[in-house]
């Protein structure tokens, strides 16, 4: 080896060495909902977070990086759960992560003011024999409640490091990181203390454990024979399916039958009871209550906001504020962004001589800027909406809101919280679909996403604003508008019912929910929440939207008619000719036979196809096919043309069809992202189009019979 190489080798080695000693570990955060898990996650990782989904499911996965001492930690925020059964997808995801990814440390975030209930999850993590750290979060609240912990003794009993913390004030971060590092460095050894289920159950567990070790050595190695035995005796659906050995199944069946006879209850109930017994044993020795106090201020707020008389009005006022913030305040930043895009368009156009027909100019101005603008213009809405949602969630009001609306929403087969995204849908489907993230249950979430486009959004309002004054006298304009909104709501309810009876069937999710004490939200957590949602929208949905927008631009601009054929035409006529000649125009003509029974001609067809880009495009496209200059929905000439061409019945059918048919591409992209499947997006797109066709056909045919 030459000396030069050697030198650079030494230099490199130093670099590699300093890089090498960063030990990489994975830390999983587990904990009950409302235990302040997200706060601790934010505290550890700051804004260096990545939000995605666990593979194949709609459960959100948050990951972040944290560098501490000579460790580089990948921190994974597991879904908030009370237990680790196979009954809910969140619990399955959490435990599969632990089993499959072998995190170096699992931190269980415990609400220190409600230790007993929170330790239930810890006992199960102990059973899985993971390297465990317990973060006693909100220890200031526990102190106010008069709870005193003998931490050292509790550590010994639970065989885990315990770190008192106040996540919202950033207290305990260093101590937690120290505990993580120490635990990661320790050699794993079997626990001496763990839940003992009593002689009879332990006897059955031993029998199952032996059968598992004998017949399913692979599974035993993977899950641990003890844990597997416990779960099988609890009749865990997921693990029972993984076990193929007859001997094991026989041992389990015999064990359950024996214990059932003995206790007169399911073994799983008795076992849960024993876990709580273990916890109260540990707590009795180590926790003292010095003062008798309650959730006082929380109770006072609850007395008002969940009051039978005041609850609903307060909820509606708050919802109005959310709506106002999202869409009314949102119009200002939207206006600035529109101005910015207008300015950019002007600047780019000025690079070409006036009247230039350059395809590049058209691509940049209409395709790229139009597409990017169409994506970014929603960003203020999304940020403001998630600011409001974060505020409602972090203060604890969201749980109350869910309960208040549950009585109504339950009747149509949805969860109380579904009300919020549906309401947002009247502003815009895009943030509304994103807002379904507040729903934990997958079926509820999918059902809600599927029907959100039936809420008349702001873009469709521009269509109604064009059509209604064109066909209806002033006295009928108000009721018409009201009717079209109402039809959307009624159809949504019918669709929910149908979905819940067919593709999204399943038992109604029982309503049990913890009412967390009211808390002051931190600015940091709200900011992180907003940033995450905004970024996710731009990165995931944005790219799809941009792609589809450019495709639609191509379809609306190509092929081009020859220059001679346009020579003697006015600019409006030329524009009309170009649209007719394009793929969209041709397609509009091609579908004419199909939409004739709805009372539509090819002109409406063309506008409808163009409007899949964004529903308000319907108005501008119609203006182009009618070769009227102004694209403004207030345009009287376009209204006059419409009135001359169509009957009021057709006018009504246009609105009806626009209300129901295929959601705009942005919504499609959003559905694709949030359901994690093109299948659901296609189902929504095609299903709503079919529904629009059927409903409009029915109305037009009946209507024209009556009128004729």
């Amino acid at each position: 080896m030459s000396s030069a190489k050697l030198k650079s080798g030494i230099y490199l080695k130093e670099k590699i060495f300093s890089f090498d000693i960063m030990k990489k570990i994975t830390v999983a955060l587990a904990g009950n909902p409302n235990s302040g898990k997200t706060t601790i996650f934010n505290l550890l990782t700051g804004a260096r977070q990545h939000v995605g989904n666990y593979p194949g499911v709609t459960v959100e996965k948050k990951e972040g990086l944290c560098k501490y001492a000579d460790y580089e930690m990948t921190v994974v925020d597991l879904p908030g759960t009370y237990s680790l059964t196979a009954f809910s997808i969140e619990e399955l995801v959490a435990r599969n992560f632990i089993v499959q990814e072998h995190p170096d440390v699992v931190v269980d975030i415990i609400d220190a003011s409600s230790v007993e209930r929170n330790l239930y999850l810890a006992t199960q993590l102990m059973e899985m024999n993971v390297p465990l750290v317990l973060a006693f979060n909100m220890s200031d609240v526990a102190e106010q409640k008069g709870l005193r912990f003998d931490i050292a003794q509790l550590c010994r009993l639970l065989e885990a490091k315990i770190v008192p913390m106040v996540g919202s004030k950033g207290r305990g971060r260093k101590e937690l990181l120290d505990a993580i590092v120490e635990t990661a460095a320790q050699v794993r050894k079997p626990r001496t203390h763990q839940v003992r289920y009593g002689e009879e159950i332990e006897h059955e567990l031993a029998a199952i454990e032996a059968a598992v070790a004998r017949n399913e050595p692979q599974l035993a190695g993977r899950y641990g024979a003890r844990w597997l035995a416990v779960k099988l005796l609890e009749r865990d659906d997921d693990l029972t399916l993984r076990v193929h050995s007859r001997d094991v199944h026989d041992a389990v069946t015999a064990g359950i039958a024996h214990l059932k006879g003995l206790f007169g209850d399911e073994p799983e109930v008795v076992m849960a009871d024993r876990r709580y017994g273990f916890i109260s044993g540990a707590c009795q020795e180590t926790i003292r209550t010095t003062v008798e106090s309650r959730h006082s201020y929380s109770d006072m707020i609850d007395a008002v906001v969940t009051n039978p008389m005041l609850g609903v009005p307060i909820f509606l006022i708050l919802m109005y504020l959310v709506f106002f913030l999202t869409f009314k305040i949102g119009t200002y930043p939207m206006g600035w962004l529109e101005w910015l895009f207008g300015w950019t368009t002007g600047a780019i156009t000025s690079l070409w001589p006036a009247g230039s027909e350059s395809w590049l100019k058209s691509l940049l101005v209409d395709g790229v800027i139009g597409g990017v603008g169409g994506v970014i213009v929603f960003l203020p809405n999304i940020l403001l909406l998630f600011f409001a949602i974060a505020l409602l969630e972090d203060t604890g009001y969201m749980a109350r809101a869910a309960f208040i609306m549950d009585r109504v929403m339950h009747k149509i087969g949805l969860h109380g919280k579904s009300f919020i995204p549906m309401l947002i849908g009247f502003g815009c489907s895009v943030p509304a679909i994103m807002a379904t993230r507040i729903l934990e249950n997958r079926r509820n979430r999918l059902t809600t996403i599927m029907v959100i486009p039936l809420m008349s959004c702001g873009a469709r309002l521009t269509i109604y604003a064009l059509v209604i004054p064109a066909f209806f006298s002033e006295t009928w304009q108000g009721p018409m508008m009201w009717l079209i909104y109402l039809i959307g709501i009624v159809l949504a309810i019918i669709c929910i019912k149908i979905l819940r009876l067919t593709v999204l069937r399943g038992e109604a999710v029982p309503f049990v929910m913890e009412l967390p004490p009211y808390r002051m939200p931190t600015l940091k957590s709200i900011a992180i929440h907003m940033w995450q949602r905004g970024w996710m929208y731009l990165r995931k949905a944005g790219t799809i939207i941009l792609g589809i927008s450019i495709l639609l631009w191509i379809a609306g601009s190509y092929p081009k008619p020859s220059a001679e054929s346009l020579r003697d035409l006015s600019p409006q006529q030329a524009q009309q000719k170009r649209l007719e000649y394009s793929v969209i125009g041709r397609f509009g003509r091609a579908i004419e036979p199909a939409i004739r029974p709805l009372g539509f001609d090819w002109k409406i067809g063309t506008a409808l196809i163009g409007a899949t880009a964004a529903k308000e495009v319907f108005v501008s496209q119609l203006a182009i096919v009618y070769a009227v200059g102004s694209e403004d929905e207030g345009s009287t000439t376009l209204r006059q043309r419409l009135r001359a061409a169509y009957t009021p019945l057709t006018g009504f059918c246009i609105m009806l069809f626009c209300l129901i048919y295929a959601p705009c591409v942005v919504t499609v992209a959003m559905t694709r992202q949030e359901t994690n499947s093109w299948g659901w997006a296609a189902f929504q797109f095609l299903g709503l189009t079919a529904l629009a066709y059927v409903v409009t056909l029915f109305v037009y045919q009946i209507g024209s019979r009556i009128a004729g």
Partner: protein
Amino acid sequence: MQRKDVKPLSTIRSGEKVRLAGIEAGRSLNSRLIAMGLVPNVEITVVSNNHPGPFVIMVKSSKVMLGRGMAQKIMVSARDHEE
């Protein structure tokens, strides 16, 4: 322990304290309730049982809301007096 008169939780008035006797529900719901602390013999305080408002209980120092239908499936008995 002798069986006292067992009745549904939904019949208990606000402010009263009772003990859980059993839950007459499917396994999935049962396991969810257990994980939230509703194990046999646990002390339950009914915080609010106002028609048509929410049904709220306090169990193991956390507040839990239940659907009214569910409150009918949860059977409770009077608290032992020696406590």
